[in-house]
């Protein structure tokens, strides 16, 4: 997958808003996790989450997910006029359920007409519709909903469409914190009582987060001919299924390894060329173990630098793949591998070359980002530093 240029970035998370803010936060190994304040659920503990500061999106849109998506997408587009029939591809797990679940809990499936505005953006596909209207974009709209790999697949598909001739693709993902996922992950006993600690010996589980990230993709020659700054390139996409279990990964990370292998083949690079891996790294015992096994099977020692940025943002579900794509682009551009916030005592059973605390300044040419989801879905993206 050569020649797909990334020419715009936008991001909002519990760390703040904008690429520069996030790079600064990653350099400082700052965590954006704090006690949940967006809503309360009596009977459940108030756990640390990556919650977006309300001031950043106040009054932007009645739907929290749409507001987050608009904020990130505007940064990615940055006023550029997108001509021709391109693609808007969004990844999301729950779309506008932050509002529609309030309607349901009040009216329990009845019409509840006085509150009907809460239902207006329930369909996950509505986010892409609003984005397209905001930027007056015609053409194809797609919404990927493959759980926690949603936006990684949106980016991969967007890059594939650029290779097939589309002039541009606005790709990314969004998810907001909501009662359904908070209570749902609690019911699965996957939430950590403390800020999550990916790959740590004492990891307990994940911390939820919210946010959005978008990337503007263009054909590289076309982007350079219009004088656009090429921030990095998307070079590979691989997606596979474990076909094993709905909520547990394959114990040896078989599907994960196959996704990474497929992505590297798509990029036309050897595993030895990978300098940095932004791992899925949710901090659940089973996920981290399976991913570590897959990485160890694919990369010969010492292997690439590995970190998980979920210790900083929390697990933002459908937005995670796009956020971590942005982090890979920032890492490649800055020559800086971010460390894993919350990792203080690496699990000795996981054979990984962790980025040292505080991060590492190093020339990085190729980065790989993993996103795995419910249903045994695995997606891997490969990014390359932009040629000067």
């Amino acid at each position, binding site marked *: 997958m050569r020649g797909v240029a990334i020419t715009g970035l936008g991001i909002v998370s519990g760390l703040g808003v904008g690429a520069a803010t996030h790079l600064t936060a990653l350099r400082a190994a700052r965590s954006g996790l704090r006690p949940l304040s967006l809503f309360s659920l009596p009977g459940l503990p108030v756990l640390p989450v990556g919650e977006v500061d309300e001031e950043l999106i106040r009054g932007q849109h009645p739907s929290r997910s749409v507001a987050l998506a608009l904020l990130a997408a505007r940064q990615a587009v940055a006023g550029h006029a997108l001509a021709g029939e391109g693609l808007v591809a969004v990844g999301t797990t729950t779309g506008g359920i932050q509002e529609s679940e309030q309607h349901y809990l009040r009216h329990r499936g*009845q019409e509840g007409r006085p509150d009907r505005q809460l239902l207006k953006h329930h369909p996950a596909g509505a986010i892409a519709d609003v984005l397209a209207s905001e930027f007056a974009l015609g053409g194809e709209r797609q919404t990927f909903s493959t759980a926690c790999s949603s936006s990684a697949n949106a980016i991969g*598909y967007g890059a594939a469409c650029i290779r097939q001739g589309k002039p541009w693709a606005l790709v990314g993902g969004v998810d907001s914190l909501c009662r359904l996922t908070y209570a749902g992950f*609690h*019911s*699965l006993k996957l939430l950590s009582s403390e800020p999550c600690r990916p790959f740590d010996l004492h990891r307990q589980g994940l911390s939820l987060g919210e946010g959005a990230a978008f990337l503007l993709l263009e054909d590289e020659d076309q982007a350079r001919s219009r004088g656009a700054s090429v921030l990095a390139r998307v070079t590979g996409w691989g997606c596979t299924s474990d*076909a094993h279990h709905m909520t547990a990964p394959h114990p040896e990370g078989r599907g994960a390894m196959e996704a990474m292998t497929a992505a590297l083949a798509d990029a036309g690079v050897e595993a030895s060329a990978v300098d940095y891996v932004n791992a899925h790294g949710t901090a659940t015992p089973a996920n981290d173990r399976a991913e570590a096994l897959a990485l160890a099977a694919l990369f010969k020692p010492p292997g690439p630098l590995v970190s998980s940025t979920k210790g900083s943002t929390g697990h933002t579900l459908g937005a995670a793949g796009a956020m971590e794509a942005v982090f890979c682009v920032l890492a490649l551009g800055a020559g800086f591998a971010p460390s894993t916030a919350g990792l203080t005592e690496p699990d000795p059973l996981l054979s990984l070359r962790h980025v040292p605390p505080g991060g590492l300044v190093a020339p990085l040419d190729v980065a790989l980002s993993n996103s795995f989801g419910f249903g045994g879905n695995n997606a891997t993206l490969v990014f390359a530093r932009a040629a000067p």
Partner: protein
Amino acid sequence: MTVSILGLGLVAPGVEDAFRVRTLPELADGSAKRLTRLERMALVAAQRALANEGEMPDLALVFGTGYGALAATAEFLDGIATRGAAFGRPIAFQQSVHHSPAGQLSILLGSHGPALTMTAREVSGESALKVGMTLLDSGRSDRVLVVAADEWTESLAAGYRSFECPQALSLGEGAAAVLLGAVPGALSVERCTLTAHPCPVLRFATREQLRPLLLEGASGVGSVSISAASDEVLKAETWGLADLLPAPARFIDSDFGFHASAGLLRLVAAATRVQASPVGSACAVHGVALGGGQSMTVVRHVRT
């Protein structure tokens, strides 16, 4: 490239069933017992499309759904509302995820290829078809099973009712499956175009917006399956096709009702009709979605 249809599957309401799937066949596979109704509809359609195929471990799956497992979502929310937030049923949460049917299909079919779930309101089936064709075209798989399913629930019906728009929707449910391959076959998907128009989120595009793709897609084909999603859309489709000469035959597969996956059900119906017609026959299947989405898919009988 060639995109052939190698298998078709359908789970649709009967003519007298008021747009609801009243009966589903028993599934022989014991592991399918815990599936939700939505997942069972999807699996039955998938098995029908794969009836003539052996094991395909590299099969790619693309699942389309507009609303996913709303019944499971409601069950989980009912649980936390009635028993307390700490007592939501984990299985209902897992099943509420849009990707759950695709995950179940990959497990039950033993497929390790890509598995994607697409959601695009009322053109979710067409959205899945388009992505499936791209997977084939980019060489990521040589067989792609496209499945789409949506279920009728009282809360969804209440949601549509609460907005009183658009008028005269017949909310239905069902599932369809299309096995695609990059090898010669009797039927081909000649093209699948997805586009969208600036439009309020609870409205369809205007007749002026819909007309160009309608005309482009229906030119040179003998028949058109129009969506007739509402009275207003039916009028727009009739108006949009009025100047086409020679006038194509028009089909309205209204027995399927209106739902997010209905486009793929109509495609299966169109493919079945075309296959029963002489080689060279084609049908253009038109789809519309609230929020401005529009699709046009052309299926052709290419060889006996």
